């Protein structure tokens, strides 16, 4: 282990879907000195519950904004490990996501450079950064796969922001010897998340268009993902590495949709075969270009390759670090569907 149980650990995005699970995992592993950076001044009930359950641990809820360098300095003070999970996913503009991914990460890294005690900076990235364009259909997507080189053409602000975030982390690793690890989870699911991932299909046009078909869906249950993130922050010899996080026994898109309909709610869906979805995507992209953006380029060839072309996924590198998914996909889906039913 890189650090002792009493050393300070900073978790950003601690009230988020994965963040809460990371906090629980750290406490379960016996770490007793956590600082949780929270932007909103409203503390969710789940965080209150964690704090009240672990009276023996020192859990400091640090209210601050990663866009403020002063707040970052305060949050990173004496931290030995930083788990950087804070993310903005709702807003769909390039600039906003860039600001809330890259500037925030830069500020946090600067604070880490200034305080000089950091042992590990865990940057939580995403599968969204990978491109599938050159990879043959159905081949394994692993950490060696190239990342997207032209995110503007992909028209995906989240992909752009995460790419730039990874780049700035690597830059600080090179220039300031920040010991970092990049974690790239697939589709994180579990109680608290809802809806069905866009890798299965989209409901934008009134009827659910099932685009995934036989493709594997790169699911990772939230607690499994949190285990992987925590482990990446504590393991020796992981500096400068990137790790993909997906569970074992991944279902196909068709199977996942079928189970969702059976266990959560039934709705009408239309399967669009791969060749047809590719053709429609090309038409959309070309029209968007021809009309100079009258329709935004939401559907384009690069998006199709990344989400609907079809890949298989590997978690071998993460397993080499000593990680195994504790919750099986079958059990994870049962818990997820139960939570979805409650929300429905």
């Amino acid at each position, binding site marked *: 282990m890189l650090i002792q149980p009493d050393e300070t650990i900073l978790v950003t995005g601690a009230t988020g879907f994965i963040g809460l699970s990371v906090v629980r995992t750290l406490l379960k592993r016996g770490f007793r000195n956590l600082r949780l950076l929270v*932007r909103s001044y409203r503390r969710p009930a789940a965080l209150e519950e964690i704090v009240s359950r672990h009276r023996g641990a020192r859990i400091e809820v640090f209210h601050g904004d990663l866009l403020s360098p002063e707040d970052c300095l305060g949050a990173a003070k004496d931290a030995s490990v930083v788990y950087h999970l804070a993310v903005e996913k709702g807003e769909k*503009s390039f*600039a906003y996501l860039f600001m809330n991914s890259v500037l925030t990460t830069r500020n946090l890294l600067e604070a880490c450079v200034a305080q000089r005690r950091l042992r590990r900076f865990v940057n939580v990235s995403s599968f969204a950064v990978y491109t599938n364009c050159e990879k043959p259909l159905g081949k394994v997507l692993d950490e060696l796969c190239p990342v997207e080189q032209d995110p503007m053409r992909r028209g995906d602000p989240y992909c752009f922001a995460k790419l730039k975030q990874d780049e700035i982390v690597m830059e600080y690793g090179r220039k300031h010897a920040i010991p970092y690890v990049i974690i790239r989870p697939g589709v994180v699911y579990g109680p608290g998340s809802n809806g069905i991932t866009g890798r299965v299909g989209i409901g934008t046009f009134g009827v659910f268009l099932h685009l995934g078909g036989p493709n594997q869906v790169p699911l990772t249950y939230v607690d499994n993902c949190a285990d992987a993130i925590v482990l990446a922050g504590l393991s020796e010899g992981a500096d400068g590495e990137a790790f993909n996080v997906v569970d074992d026994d991944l279902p196909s898109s068709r199977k996942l949709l079928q189970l969702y309909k059976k266990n959560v709610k039934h709705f009408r869906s239309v399967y669009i075969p791969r060749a047809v979805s590719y053709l429609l995507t090309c038409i959309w992209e070309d029209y968007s270009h021809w009309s100079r953006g009258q329709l935004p380029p939401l559907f384009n060839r690069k998006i199709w390759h990344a989400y609907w072309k079809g890949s298989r996924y590997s978690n071998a590198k993460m397993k080499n670090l000593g990680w195994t998914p504790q919750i099986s996909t079958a059990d994870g889906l049962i818990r997820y569907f139960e939570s979805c039913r409650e929300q429905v």
Partner: protein
Amino acid sequence: MLRVGIIGCGKVADVHISQIRRIGGCKIVGVCDREELMAQQLSERFGVPRYFSEVGEFLSFSRPDVVHITTPPQSHFEIAKLCLESGCHVYVEKPFTLYAWEAKELVERANASSVKLTAGHNAQFSHAARRMRRLVQEGYLGGPPVHLESLWCYELEDNVFAKAFLGAKRHWVRELPGGLLHNIISHGIAKLAAFFTMESPIVSAHGFISPLLRGLGENQIIDELRVMICDAERTTAYFTFSSGMRPSVRQFRIWGAKNGLLVDDDQQTVIKLRGSRYKSYLEMFVPPLNLAGQYVGNVWSNARLFLARDFHMDSGMKCLIEAFYRSIAGKQSVPIPYREILLTARIMDDIFQQVSSQSVPQVPLRPVVPRIAC
């Protein structure tokens, strides 16, 4: 070739660049943001040749003819002054300035330097707004307007921007003199200002925090506003800003001595409201048929614009920018008369002064719905 620069590289700058690129006869020569990474990302994404983090350096190196200011409103005044001093024409995003005196000073400086200014009141230049103005100019109202009504609703629940400032105590929106209202209402107020002839109409405003926000523990952000404006000449107006009203509409209605008009910003429809009435039962059948026909006509005209690739979400901004650039070239006057910009700022000043002086009224969390006996 008009040399264009952008100061402020947030998400609104994306919209500006996208629209500028649809216009001929101009090129973007540089972008600037005090946060260099923001300037760099914008320049990389849109292939802008240079980026800067200092306004002075940007103005002297890039030498733009016209500058679009798309920073948060707190910096509009100072940046606009610098640009005007450098001899640039300036497009300032809404809200134009924080205070009316700042707006007045900018207009005076622009006049003194013989350069041009405009405000980002692009909702005035949407297809529907232009159709409405043409009808008014052709005399459809039958004289000057008698009464105006501007409704501008804003959904907080699903709005990502709203979530950002509601969750953050130090968000720049909270630091505006008029808070959330300041950032949003200028579109709706500018629509009214365009039809007032007096410099200082009487403004009576009432603002409060909605039950929704109070339920979330919010005690600063005023998200409900009702305003009455009276011109001593003859025109009156109501302005409504609401986060709670459903449907959430952005509409403008104008009534003259003969007829009226209804403009829907979201649906991009213009409906003629006939002043004359039909006899007896005919009034119950003919006008609804007429309205149905008008809505079908609006569908058709919107479809034609779409097929002609001229129905972009921000087409109002493109039209405003084009008109502003034409005025710079000396081909026409400024698209928004300075009188309108100043009146909008003055009305907003009045509203915020009145609203801030009111104590927050204690509206019950669950409003009582009166029972109506049938």
